[in-house]
């Protein structure tokens, strides 16, 4: 395979060189444990503080409202279980949606087995929730609304400000999974009335295995990982020092360059969408036409199946995804595509191509050229296509 084209930036991103450089000294030289009081420990502590302040600045938070975790999934689990168990005396009802990431959905399901009640809001064909349905779902037992900022599959961005305002008005904690939104949308936790927010470094050109949870001062929450006094006693474990340094740098870069990044990926994304929609029949474009992640393109090609499409693309060095990377081990069609009402057989033909800072116009043009041929080849093999075409060859 000579050329490789990565169009799976929503699954994970390569780390930027600047991020790696910032991290490097912390592996072998400035390697101290931030809890130690000697010089090795103090320089480690300073590095963590700087990263914390960079991340805080990126989302308009105070430094002591940022907690580092081992990833976005841990942040989701912590936020939801932590708030649920700490506020059980006030109620046992949680509101979420049908299109959340599994880190939210499976956590909610776990809580259901432990006596909590969960309302899963519907979404429309574009993946948007209804504010009215949200309002109606609230009861006096509702303790938490957990609702994702932007969807990882179809890219739809929810009206987070309005949701935050409703939660604030009703005095209910509002958690949002912003793993896909960070670095792609301007976020101000105060303007949006967000109480807790999950983040993950590896989606913004930072390292894997590091995440963050924003917890507004005053929020009642239990710990998920008990032990040492790290993270203001709320999240135990020796800090992932180089990882946290890398996350801080990645967040700083993302915010400095937000407009440029959005413009770059959106231009290429629109070029890709136009190229494909012009050249291929029987294809749907999924997600919201405007309120969507700038780098997300999501198609469903009728009569063919996503995995064979991915494999064919992969043979040409093109890396895409058929839904969330987490679910590609599963054979069921994605719960998100079911929730937007896509028929099963069409959902199976879905392809997510997500564009990032390193994507070039040449790469996009190559995909526009090759993808229609692949779709065509697979359709020629498909008994479903045969029926539509009435047997013509």
């Amino acid at each position, binding site marked *: 395979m000579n050329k490789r084209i990565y169009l799976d930036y929503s699954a994970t991103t390569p780390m930027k060189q600047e991020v790696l450089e910032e991290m490097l000294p912390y592996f072998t030289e400035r390697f101290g444990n931030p809890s130690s009081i000697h010089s090795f420990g103090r320089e480690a502590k300073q590095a963590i503080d700087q990263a914390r302040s960079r991340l805080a600045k990126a989302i308009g938070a105070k430094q002591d409202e940022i907690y580092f975790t081992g990833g976005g999934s841990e942040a989701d689990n912590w936020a939801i279980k932590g708030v649920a168990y700490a506020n059980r005396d006030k109620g046992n009802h949680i509101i979420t949606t049908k299109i959340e990431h599994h880190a939210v959905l499976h956590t909610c399901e*776990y809580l259901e087995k432990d006596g909590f009640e969960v309302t899963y809001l519907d979404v429309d064909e574009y993946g948007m929730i209804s504010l009215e349905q949200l309002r109606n779902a609230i009861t006096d037992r509702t303790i938490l609304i957990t609702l994702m900022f932007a969807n990882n599959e179809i890219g739809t961005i929810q009206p987070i400000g309005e949701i935050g305002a409703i939660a604030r008005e009703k005095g209910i904690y509002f958690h949002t999974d912003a793993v896909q939104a960070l670095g792609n949308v301007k976020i101000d936790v105060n303007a949006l009335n967000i109480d807790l927010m999950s983040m993950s470094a590896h989606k913004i050109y930072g390292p894997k295995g590091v995440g963050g949870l924003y917890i507004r001062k005053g929020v009642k929450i239990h710990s998920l990982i008990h032990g040492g006094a790290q993270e203001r006693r709320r999240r135990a474990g020796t800090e992932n020092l180089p990882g946290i340094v890398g996350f801080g740098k990645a967040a700083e870069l993302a915010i400095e360059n937000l407009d440029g990044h959005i413009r770059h990926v959106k231009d290429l994304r629109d070029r890709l969408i136009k190229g494909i929609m012009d050249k291929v029949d029987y294809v749907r474009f999924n997600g919201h036409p405007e309120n969507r992640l700038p780098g997300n393109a999501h198609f469903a090609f009728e*009569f*063919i*199946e*996503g*995995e*064979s499409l991915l*494999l*064919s693309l992969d*043979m040409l060095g093109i890396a895409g995804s058929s839904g969330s990377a987490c679910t590609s*081990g*599963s*054979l069921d*069609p994605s719960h998100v595509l079911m929730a937007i009402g896509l028929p*099963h*057989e069409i959902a*199976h033909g879905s392809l997510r191509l997500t564009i990032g800072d390193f994507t070039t116009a040449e790469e996009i043009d190559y995909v526009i050229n090759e993808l229609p041929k692949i779709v065509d080849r697979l359709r*020629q*093999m*498909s*008994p*479903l296509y*045969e029926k539509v075409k009435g*047997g013509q060859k």
Partner: protein
Amino acid sequence: MYSEKVMDHFMNPRNVGEIENADGIGEVGNAKCGDIMKMYLKIENDVIVDVKFKTFGCGSAIATSSIATEMIKGKTIQEALKLTNQAVVEALDGLPPQKIHCSVLAEQAVKSALLDYAKKHHITLDELNDFHPDEDHHEHGEEYEEA
């Protein structure tokens, strides 16, 4: 994840297409589950002289259909009836656990085409007495315990 054999049969599938006036046609799976296999047979003097397939499905579904056609082409009906999904898996140098059911689908596609042939020609194939192609073939491999 896939062997070279699987990728070869996926990228260069043998015997894709349809046979006009086929002697037997079998179709298994359903679009809802993301897989349909359709198999066409031309049979002369109890020998499968030609076979073609069309498949809507994943890479391994396409590869198993392709190799299954190769494995029965030129064979007698009796020989083709002995085709098992294990044989298909072995011929492909293995499949990931969650893809074993694609090979089951291939076996069933062959059998339903033969059943169709038998019905059309009013013969009985005892081997197919217990064969019910509509059975749920979706056995999605290993399940892990999860909390």
